[in-house]
Each structure stands twice: as C-alpha cells, then as structure tokens.
C-alpha cells in the first residue's frame, strides 16, 4: 500500500520535472538542436557553382572530399598549433601574475587592476593595438630601429606567432582573474602549515599550491582550448588567414567557404568537423586530465 503510494508520488514528481524542462528544451531545439542537425544535413548537398541552380545530393562524398583535402589538414594543423601556442602560455603567465599579485603589499590593488585590465578590451582592440605595434612603417619596430621585410604579419614564419601573442595578451586579464580566484580559494592555513612543515617555496608550490589549484587549471585548459579552437576575430583583422594559409584556422576556413566561395555545403562540413574536433578534445581532456584534479572536500 505504502509502496504503491510511494511510486505514485515518484511518478508524479518525475512528470512535473519533465514538464518544467519543456521550455528550455523548446528553446534549445529551435536554436541549437535543429540548426545543428540541419547543418549536418546541409553537408550532404553540393552547392552549385552559380546561384539559382538546384543543389545536388552527394551523401558523404562531400564530407570525404573536404576532410581528406590538404587545405583541411593545413587548417587543422594551424588550429592545433595556435591552441598549443596560446593556451599553456596564457595559463602559465596568468598564474605567474596571480602569484605575484597574491601578496599583502601596499598598492597591490593597482597591480591587480593593471593585470586584469585586458579583460576590458575586445578582440578588435587587441588586434588594432598589435597590428599597429607590428606595422613596418608606423609601429613599435621601426621606432626601435628594427626593419622588417616582409612585415611580421605578412611573414609566413612569424604570422601565426604574432596572432598567438595578440591572443595571449588579450586573454591574459581573464586568465589572471581566474588564477587569482583559484589561489584565493586555497586556505591560508594550509600554505602556512606547509611552511612550518619545512617545505621551501618550490616544493610548497609543486606539492601543495598546484594540486589545490588543479580544478582551476583544469577549467582553464578545457575552456581555453575551446576558445582557442573558435578564435576568429584576430585572424580576420590581422592576417585574413594568410600569408600562404599559415594562419588559416578552421573558423577562418569556414568563414571563407561561406562568404568568399559562397559554398554552403563546404562550410557545413567544416563546421561539423570543428564541432567534432572540439568535442573529442574536451572529452579527452576530461578523461586524461581530470584524474589528476583534486576537487577539495
């Protein structure tokens, strides 16, 4: 009798729960799930060379063709190098600044403000600043007496590095804030205990601070990688994917496919590829890195 009543109540509560999920499911369906499936479907159609002609169904042919092309593997390589250049450096620099600012000193508030200030700049602002700094005619380099031909942003060797530096600078404020909050969440007494227990600064950092900071670092790695894989503004403003495709990251390739080549099918395939790559990367990070993360008690 009571068991029956219990299950009835369980069922009623579950029903209510699903009912409350309906609005968000509806919104997600319209703006996320449907467009995503539609995009995947779009990849099955070859976009005609001239507008007005009918689209031709080619199934997985277009996927196979694009994903095995050298242009795609170049974009993949550039994207991965870009992420490797920006994410670890950004996190390490943010952590170094956060450690420096995590002290009780007079005027430390000014440093904190300065260190976090880039969070208030947009990608566009950062790009303009670095575009100007690296400009061979009016920038910092000629002022320093360094002449660059071709200019750094047009030099296949350095263009990606320059875009990466711009990105690191622009993200540094956020990285500093995230790392600072992580550091401040570590109880002072634990650090003090390790001091009394005889640990010098380096072992203290490696054995106590860093493990306790691991959830923050993990978060920064996962989110930072996703952001890096989706970077677009600085590429568009500084290099437009050039020189010689050396900065043509996936997002920029999607953009050129859609806007330049007017090739919806190709853009759809590349979008699906970007989604899958990001998904796999995030799952892999969760599987591999999260084992080393300590989430406190």
């Amino acid at each position, binding site marked *: 009798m009571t068991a029956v009543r219990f299950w009835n109540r369980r069922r009623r509560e579950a029903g209510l729960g699903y009912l409350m999920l309906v609005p968000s499911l509806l919104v997600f369906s319209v703006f996320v799930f449907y467009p995503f499936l539609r995009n995947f479907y779009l990849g099955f159609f070859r976009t005609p060379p001239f507008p007005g002609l009918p689209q031709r169904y080619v199934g997985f042919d277009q996927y196979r063709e694009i994903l095995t092309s050298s242009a795609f593997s170049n974009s993949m390589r550039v994207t991965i190098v870009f992420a490797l250049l920006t994410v670890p450096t950004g996190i390490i620099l943010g952590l170094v600044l956060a450690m420096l600012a995590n002290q009780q000193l007079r005027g430390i508030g000014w440093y904190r403000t300065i260190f976090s200030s880039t969070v208030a700049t947009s990608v566009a602002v950062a790009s303009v600043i670095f575009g100007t700094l690296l400009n061979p005619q009016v920038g910092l380099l000629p002022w320093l007496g360094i002449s660059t031909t071709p200019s750094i942003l047009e030099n296949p060797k350095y263009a990606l590095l320059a875009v990466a530096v711009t990105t690191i600078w622009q993200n540094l404020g956020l990285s500093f804030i995230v790392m600072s909050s992580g550091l401040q969440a570590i*109880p002072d*007494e*634990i650090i*003090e*205990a*390790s*001091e*009394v*227990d*005889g*640990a*010098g600064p380096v*072992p203290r950092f490696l*054995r*106590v601070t860093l*493990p*306790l900071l*691991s959830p923050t670092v993990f978060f920064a790695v996962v989110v930072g990688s996703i952001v890096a894989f989706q970077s677009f503004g600085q590429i568009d403003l500084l290099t437009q994917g050039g020189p010689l495709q050396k900065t043509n990251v996936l997002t920029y390739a999607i953009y050129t496919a859609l806007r330049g080549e007017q090739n919806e099918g190709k853009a759809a395939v590349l979008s699906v590829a970007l989604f899958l790559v990001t998904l796999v990367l995030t799952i892999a990070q969760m599987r591999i890195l999260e084992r080393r993360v*300590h989430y*406190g*008690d």
Partner: protein
Amino acid sequence: MARVVLDHVTKRFGDVTAVDDLCLEVEDREFLVLLGPSGCGKSTALRMIAGLESLTDGRIAIGDRVVNDVEPKDRDIAMVFQSYALYPHMSVARNIEFPLRSRKVPEDERTPLVQEAARALGLTDLLDRKPAQLSGGQRQRVALARAIVRRPAAFLMDEPLSNLDAKLRVQTRAELIELQRRLDATVIYVTHDQVEAMTMGHRIAIMNDGVLQQVGPPQDVYERPANLFVARFIGAPPMNTIQGSVVVEGGETLLATPGGRIAVPDAFGAAARRSSTGEIVVGVRPEHLEVDPSGPIEARVAVIESLGHERHVVCRIGDEPLVIVRQAADEPRPAEGSSVRLRAEVEGIHLFDAVTGVRLEAPA
C-alpha cells in the same frame, strides 16, 4: 626539546598593537597555555613564534638560537592549527609524512616513523583515507600525528580543540595531556577556554589587549589573580566583584559593601590603603559565598540555576551587578525573589584597586 623565550616582543599592525612588550619564558618540556579572549593577541604571539608573523620589536629564541630572521621551515617547530590545515589532496599517510618528506628524510626511515605516529594516535586503519573521508575528531588526530612524527624543538597549538564537539573535546583534552607527558615535549597552547587552560597547562599565561596579565601555575592564578581581569576571566562561573570600601570603627576593621558590612582582619586595612585612589573592588568566588540567615550581607535571589550536582543562586546586592553563590544540591534551596543573607569566607575575599584593577595585599 627546547626552551622558548620571548623577550620584549611587540607586534603592531598599522595603528593596532596586537602584542605589547610581551616577555615570557617557556621552560623545556613545559606545557604552557596562552589564554585570553579573542583578539587579545595570543594567536599573534604564537604565530610570531612559528615565524608566520614578523616581529615589530623584541626577540624570540628557540633553544639557544634567536629566530627573528629564521624562516618557519628552519625553526624546528611543529604547529597544529584550529582548522587542522590538512592537505586535502593527500592521504592520511602522506599528510603525516609531509614534514619528513619536506626535510628530505630518506624513504626507508619515513615509513616506520609514520607508522609509529599513526599508532600513537589510533590512525593505523585510516592511513589510506583522504581528509574529506574523516570525522572532525579523526582529522584532529591526523593534525597531531603530523606534528609528532618529527621530534621538533617545540609544539605550537592554536585552539586545536575548538572545532570539536563538547564531549570529544573533553576526551581529546585528556589525550593531549597524556601525549605531552609521554613525549616530554615543550608545548605552547593557545586557547580562549579557561577550562582547557586550567586542566592542561603546567603554567597559564593570561593576555588581554595584547598585554600579558599574569603567568603562573593554574591553581596560583585561580587563588591569587593578579588583577580584576584575571579574576573575572578565570573560573566558571567567574569571581563576583562589587564596589566596596574598608572602614575602621571602634578599633574593628570592617569591609563595607552595598549589602552590609563584613568584619575582616586588620591586614585588609593595610591592603586597602595601597589603593591608588582609596576606592576598592571586592572579589569573592561563588564557592566562598554561602546562604546563611545570620550572614552580614543582604541580598535578593534573582534566579536559581540548577546543574544537578550543584546550583548557582544568582543574587542581586543593592544596585550592583549580579552575584553568584555556589550551593551544593543538598543544601536548602532559597525561593526565587526572596530576601536572603549571605556570608563570605574571609580567606576567600580578594581586594582590587578600583581604578587600576591591580590586586591589593597587605605588605608582608
């Protein structure tokens, strides 16, 4: 083990003086309790000994070495924190091992030391657990084990029992005393709990507003408080204090209180004359007062608190603050609101300077 000496130690934070000219010598193998209300500077004093705070002025020596400029890790001390400060990402064994690892003790020597410390505190079955999987009492033991795994010159303990529930606190208190005796360790123990101070310390050092008030064995401090602050801080319930004066009438020395006059020995007159302004405060502990129909002091019973084995008769004498009389449970119980007469044991009467608060005694 070693002596710890604080020599005219002062700590200022901006305009606030947390510790003011503190002089204290902790003997080798002594259990010294630093006692005082929150904000009295006792924790700051302990943290200066640990090296977690710098000194504004003065000198601290551990053993034969002045440690003012020595890093905490090189001071050869162990500290137990109020929050235990266990390393949450390490197992119990790793936590206990940490001070040894940090000091580069070889691994084959570490393991038996960890085992021994764990055995001493009953943690042998918990070595693989993480701190989050332990109860408050168990965490406290891990913190203690981490402190005793090495034989440091001194143990510093900052309110280590205050996060435990009342029952566990009493039990752990006894275990801590036993541990200190067994290790023959120098312990400096900070607490705001006067019961802990009375029961645990060889000596108590009482602080208020950054200033050391009195140092001495618990019984001495209880029986001869150096000033009004100590008198009112030590003892539960604390010492009763009321305004009074000493008068001599017809060759007899009388102690005048708002509730009546008490005949006292002549020495009281000599003591009272040492008061800076002539005004005095009379102090009597609750156990030195009794309800007696022929007693000299008139009072009105406000409330009676029964504790089972004894009761506290809370009385009002004139307009003075409340006065507590300790009664055994088998004594006749006065009615609340009734008038009673009280008698004080003359040996239990203390005199203090009403302005400076200093204890007044007749010159020997």
